[in-house]
């Protein structure tokens, strides 16, 4: 079938439905963006799992003191840390998939996509 012939099979209402569907997809696209998660671990255990969409500051207690984690505008960083080298603080805002680890205080912050296993469905 020629493309023109295929198009003639579409009626005005069909175009309407398709346009509405496309508009819906476009509106939802980027909305909620990715299934981002922020996972804060202390001494290997999950201290807090949260969304980067909620602005907040989290105080994570460790063996050296308190590590401050800041979530703002969908980004996450380690604001302050009692460690001497400040490696994790200097790392700044984390991109998706990045991890900041404050080794002395045994705190890690992961910015990862939420795991959704749709296999088999």
């Amino acid at each position, binding site marked *: 079938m020629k493309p023109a012939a295929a198009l003639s*099979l579409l009626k005005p209402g*069909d175009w309407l439905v398709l346009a509405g569907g496309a508009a819906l997809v476009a509106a939802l696209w980027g909305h*909620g963006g990715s299934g981002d998660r922020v996972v804060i671990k202390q001494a290997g255990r999950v201290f807090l799992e949260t969304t980067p969409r909620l602005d907040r500051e989290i105080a994570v207690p460790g063996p050296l003191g308190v590590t401050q984690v800041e979530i703002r505008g969908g980004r996450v960083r380690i604001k302050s840390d009692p460690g001497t080298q400040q490696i994790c603080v200097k790392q700044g805002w984390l991109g998706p998939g990045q991890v900041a680890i404050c080794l002395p205080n045994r705190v890690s912050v992961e910015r990862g996509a939420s795991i959704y296993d749709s296999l088999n469905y």
Partner: protein
Amino acid sequence: MTPSIINLEISAEDRRIAGLAAAAVGLTLAEAAVPLPLPGVKPGLANIVTLVVLYQFGWRAAVWVSLLRIVAGALALGAFLTPTFVMSLAGGLASLTMLGLAVHLPRRWFGPVGLSALAAFAHIGAQLGVVGVWLMPGVNLLPLLSVFLGAAWVSGLVNGLVVAGLLEKKT
């Protein structure tokens, strides 16, 4: 004592529905054998059969064919009564309901493509609903919604065009 005899009358319609359901099951099985890039996204080729049945034999026949296809397809794939089956059933019921409503839309304005797309949206909406409410409550499905709706849009369009082409050929 007279032995009771159960006599099942098999009407021509029964045979027709069985045959069409078998065709739909065949498409479901063929589709299951094709590897797809994204899990959960399927072209839903069996819906071509459902739509053709809807146009040729009415909504009741379409319901029969679709439900028989879902049950028989799940049995053949070993998915009967698993979450996969529940999702497939929920999607099937939702799209049948949608088709039952949409078939009353004026034919002059709405053809197979529109109905197919609407059914595909209802299908994926119900499936994500099942996931959100039952399988993975609390998981943020919003980011997935656009991907799955987009896939439903494409498969709805393609299946609808196939149906429109088939019906065109027939008349």
